[in-house]
């Protein structure tokens, strides 16, 4: 189980705002998350939950009008913990693309149409001083082979537009893996791709992860993918992490009302479903978010305190965390109500 491994990333008390013309969007509202080495952790949630913003905040890829207000992002580098939010830009750039790498949704925009695929893979290594051009070129061919692209010796010389969507995504994966990153962050890597290609890519990620022991953070709204590849799941809603559990628990014994609601509206093709149960209401406006628990307006079990205060995080069982007043003990709740 992944909890026996050491942590490699710790996000603490993260707050991110976006200062737009319409107002201040309080996108990330106090996120705490631990990532263990070698695991596949999935951040799930719907639009506006903040999973993408959180993943980008890790290496400060938040452009204005976004701003990381406060928090710590601790990364274990060579047995020492460093706060990525406090590093200067040059130091951070050394880590981005090297120890923490990204894969995004649209491979076409990740690849430069003017350079060959081989060049782009090799470039990542050379820029991070991992190899000179000759070695990098050779390694690029190896990486393409590992991502199961046929005839890699010829493919290194091709341009992105000559490749299909699935192939492009494999090239993007090769680039991301070229420096043997500690953490690979995949943000909806298969949303634009056909089901069959999606299956291939996920199988590929699973294999590479087994072989190299890379930690993968998978951001997705597709619960099927999560079921296939994730070890642990963190469910996010409107800028908060509402539940964290291992893969089996989250599907079999979800606790948070939002998690339950989410799972109830995902159509499982193997079951005979009479009716899907949608979650009533809509995602809140994050410029004027509801007070207290942001889910309370839609929650079937909302209590008074939910409307006033955000619940603390409770560890129900080892590794299973929920942020919900339903699971906070009576005394603690009364304490909180008093201090108001």
């Amino acid at each position, binding site marked *: 189980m992944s909890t026996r491994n050491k942590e490699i990333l710790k996000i603490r008390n993260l707050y991110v705002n976006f200062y737009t013309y319409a107002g201040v969007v309080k996108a990330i509202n106090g996120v705490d998350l631990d990532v263990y080495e070698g695991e596949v952790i999935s951040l799930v949630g719907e639009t506006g939950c903040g999973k993408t913003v959180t993943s980008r905040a890790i290496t400060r890829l938040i452009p204005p009008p976004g701003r990381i207000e406060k928090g710590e992002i601790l990364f274990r580098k060579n047995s020492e913990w460093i706060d990525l939010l406090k590093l200067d830009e040059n130091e951070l750039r050394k880590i981005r693309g090297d120890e923490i790498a990204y894969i995004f949704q649209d491979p076409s925009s990740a690849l430069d149409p003017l350079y060959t695929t081989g060049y782009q893979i090799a470039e990542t290594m050379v820029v991070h001083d991992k190899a000179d051009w000759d070695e990098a070129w050779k390694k690029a061919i190896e990486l393409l082979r590992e991502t199961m692209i046929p005839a890699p010796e010829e493919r290194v010389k091709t341009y992105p537009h000559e490749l299909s969507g699935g192939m492009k995504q494999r090239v993007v994966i090769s680039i991301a893996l070229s420096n043997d990153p500690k953490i690979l962050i995949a943000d909806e890597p298969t949303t634009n791709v056909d089901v069959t290609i999606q299956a291939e890519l996920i199988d590929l990620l699973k294999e590479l992860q087994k072989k190299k022991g890379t930690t993968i953070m998978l951001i997705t709204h597709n619960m099927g993918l999560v079921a296939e590849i994730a070890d642990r799941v963190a469910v996010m809603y409107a800028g908060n992490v509402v539940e964290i559990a291992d893969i089996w628990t989250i599907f079999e014994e979800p606790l948070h009302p939002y998690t339950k609601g989410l799972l109830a509206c995902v159509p*499982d*093709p193997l079951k005979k479903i009479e009716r899907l*149960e949608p979650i009533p209401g809509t995602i809140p406006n994050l410029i004027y978010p509801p007070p207290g628990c942001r889910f309370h307006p839609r929650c079937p079990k909302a209590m008074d305190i939910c409307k006033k205060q955000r619940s603390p995080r409770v560890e129900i069982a080892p590794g299973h965390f929920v942020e919900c007043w339903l699971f906070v003990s009576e005394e603690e709740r009364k304490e909180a109500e008093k201090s108001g």
Partner: protein
Amino acid sequence: MAKPLIEVKDLKKYFPVRRFLLSKDYVKAVDGVTFTIYKGECLGVVGESGSGKTTLGRTILRLIEPTAGDIIYDGKSILKLKGEELKEFRRKAQMVFQDPFSSLDPRMTIFDIILEGPRIHNIDVGDPEEFVVKMLETVGLKREHIYRYPHEFSGGQKQRIAIARALAVNPEFIVLDEPTSALDVSVQASILNMLKDLQKKFGLTYMFISHDLAVVKYMSNRIATMYVGKFVEIANSDKMFEEPLHPYTMMLLDALPIPNPKITRAKKRKEIVGEPPSPIHLPPGCRFYPRCPYAMPICKAREPPLVEVEKDREVACWLYQ
């Protein structure tokens, strides 16, 4: 016994691609499709990108003119319709598109959008405002939304407006082209439920096009799998999932991630090889040949026709012929 509402016979849609001076290639988006949709049912059409399912949806409604073949609606061929008769067909057969952001005119209020159809078809709706409110309420929206503009609504709400627009002319048949693909899971669930309720309430017939197998299964009575311009299997939804016959359907189901870790991690997937062929110069035999794990010599030489191999099950594969 169910009555056929639409019968499609060997429908083809080819798009010319000019190479240069005088030489044309044709993208065979729909390359000979034959099927029937029965009154009151929902036929799901599943395929990946390049399968031609979107072109099929549009051609069936004559939003695009077919290259060959026939479409018979309620006993009459729609290809020969003109003038008033064509207009009447367009009232009866509606479409809901994938992208709610671009299918609603941003310069029209919801009131105008919903009334546009009845106005064009000279339908007497009584008091226009009450009518529009009734339509909005049918799709779960409210009276106060009536004079707003599309941009003021979320994706899910826009899709509801699009559905209300389609319903405003009292149609019989609706083609839904990926109606919920752009939406969040919970919004999708509520729209799908609404579509099911509306179907029962108004006795509608649906053609539901999507790449999402799980959603198609939830909505459809029968499913047709489409591969590079042709149907490869048509079957009852439950039976297709229990026992897919065509190797492509098997591949799709195999690739489908199931939101249940116990099941999805236990199964071993057959390695998926290759990519679909180019829809311009198709090989002579079965189009799935290069990727099929059961390929036989005949598969390369001759294309298998789509035939009924057991009751209510059509498959185009030499394994069954």
